[in-house]
């Protein structure tokens, strides 16, 4: 009986936190997403918020774009971080590999906002890159490198790298070097070793890294807003606009739920396609 009581005491903060800050607001948002003003200006139950999403082209196109770019960002992040993680764990000696891991972490001690401004200083029309390209005579007049999809994706990949590289490093550390040597000894080329031995072995790490990166990218507001500019709409900006600019909380809530459903669906499909197990990937 006493054991049961201590369990409840320890669980209480967690349950309160989950209930008050996650469940309750979501329930409220869920209800208001199904409400809309009628012609008389009264709140009534309605599906019109969700209807608006499908009828207004700009909404679902942004939605689709956001999903595609989030997937692309996840893939690019993996492609960039895998060689780094492999190099740190398998090529470098134990002494330097710790130092290099710290070097990877250092930029993330600064807030995301500061890092993004750093990129903007480098990339903007009067920025560092343009200045030196002009100096070297490679270009005649400054190029605007900010406010397009490419720089936005680059910013998103940069922001996400840490969340991919850490699980990759930890699962690569578990891979015994002699497995790689055994495959090499049995006649495998380097490419085959990566494809048939290394990737399958670290798949749980890839899965957990990808889930985190995908979720963070999909729900990112800062980077698309600052680096993407007006031409690179992100779905979170639509939500923001509804809540803050249009004061249409009902519409915003509906968009929020659509984003939740979308991310869950994509992760579910991703796990299905790669035959991975969520609990194994997160353990």
């Amino acid at each position, binding site marked *: 009986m006493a054991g049961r009581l201590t369990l409840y005491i320890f669980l209480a903060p967690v349950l309160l936190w989950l209930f008050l800050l996650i469940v309750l607001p979501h329930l409220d948002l869920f209800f208001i997403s199904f409400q809309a003003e009628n012609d008389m200006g009264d709140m009534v139950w309605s599906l019109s918020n969700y209807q608006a999403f499908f009828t207004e082209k700009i909404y679902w196109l942004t939605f689709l774009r956001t999903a595609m770019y989030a997937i692309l960002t996840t893939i690019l992040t993996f492609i960039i971080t895998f060689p780094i993680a492999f190099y740190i764990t398998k090529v470098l000696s134990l002494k330097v590999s710790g130092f290099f891991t710290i070097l990877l972490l250092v930029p993330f001690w600064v807030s995301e906002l500061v890092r993004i401004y750093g990129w903007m200083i480098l990339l903007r029309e009067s920025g560092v890159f343009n200045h030196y390209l002009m100096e070297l005579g490679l270009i005649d007049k400054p190029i605007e490198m900010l406010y397009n999809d490419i720089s936005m994706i680059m910013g998103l990949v940069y922001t996400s790298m840490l969340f991919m590289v850490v699980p990759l490093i930890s699962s690569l550390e578990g891979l*015994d070097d*002699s*497995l790689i*040597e*055994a*495959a*090499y*000894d*049995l*006649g*495998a*080329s380097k490419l*085959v070793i990566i494809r*048939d*031995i290394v990737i*399958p*072995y670290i798949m749980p790490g890839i899965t957990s890294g990808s889930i985190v990166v995908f979720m963070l990218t999909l729900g990112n507001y800062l980077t698309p807003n600052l680096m993407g500019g007006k031409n690179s709409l992100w779905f979170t900006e639509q939500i923001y606009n509804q809540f803050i600019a249009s004061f249409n909380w009902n519409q915003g809530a509906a968009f929020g739920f659509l984003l939740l459903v979308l991310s869950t669906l994509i992760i579910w499909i991703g796990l299905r396609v790669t035959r991975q197990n969520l609990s194994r990937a997160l353990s």
Partner: protein
Amino acid sequence: MSNDLEVENLVRDFAAFRAVDNVNFEVKQGSFFSILGPSGCGKTTLLRMIAGFLEPSSGDIRIREKSVLGVPPNLRPVNLIFQHLSLFPMMDVKENISFGLKRRKVSQAEINKQVSTILERVGLPDYASKQINQLSGGQKQRVAIARALILEPSILLLDEPLGALDLKLREQMKIELKKLQQEVGTTFVYITHDQSEALVMSDHVAVMNNGEFEQIDTPKNLYTHPGTGFVADFIGENNSFDATVSSTDPFKVKLDMGHEFFARAMTSLAKGTNCKLYIRPESIVINPQHTENLNKFGVVVKNVLFDGANTKLLAVIENTSREIMAALPQDKRFDHIKPGDKLDVGVYNDSCTCF
């Protein structure tokens, strides 16, 4: 018969440390060759050079008369059984075994046929679809061997693969490995620090110490005619004593506690030089009946170390504190011996070897 492997003046340096120092040997086709040495003697470095994971600093390695220097491991006609076997955990038994064949672009039908043949051969016919973590230690061992043998290598290299097994299984696998090697006729090069593994299985054994080969010989010769003091000490058990040569014809040595022994000099030893005298526990005769060609001395029993057929007598030489081990045959004749007894023992002159 031709040689499958020839190693010539092989040297490998790691910075200032010479791990393998001018090693020469050849392995005949179809034979079981072991490299035996204490840990850190350079045997793993030597094996990794033959497998291709390390390049020698100088010297040559020839497999079937072709130099393999500069050839990467995936293109060498040798396969290695790793110390911890290194089976691929994400594949089942069949995928593990067929991994090498797939790299050679062998057709699926041919792969299926060969996999079932080799599984039959290693005694695991129904295990094709088992996962690696479902196998016992001995079964993993056999899968690892099957995975390498299916590629029909010129030489199979084995890096202490029995080290992780428990005693009973190790004894059993020793005999199995030897039988398997005779059946398939592949040349085995086996490295180990366990002398019993090397002696039981091998046709020839090389004893390695500090990066050099001390002696290459048949297991029996290594035991009866050790070429150096290290080999005498390392192979089997031995009592060793510091001694001085007191006469060369007949060869006699004087121990530091005053006893004089007729002995056999294994190297040329001049009168007055210091040497080491080795006496094997099983060459000591308890209560000898005759005294011809025998060094006799008295001992006081300290303890009987019972170990079944390996039972030993721990004694000190009379009037000294020098300990000596003698084999104690378990045939009831010596059951009366107990600590504190005084015994006469003898050693045949031939069984006393000096270096």
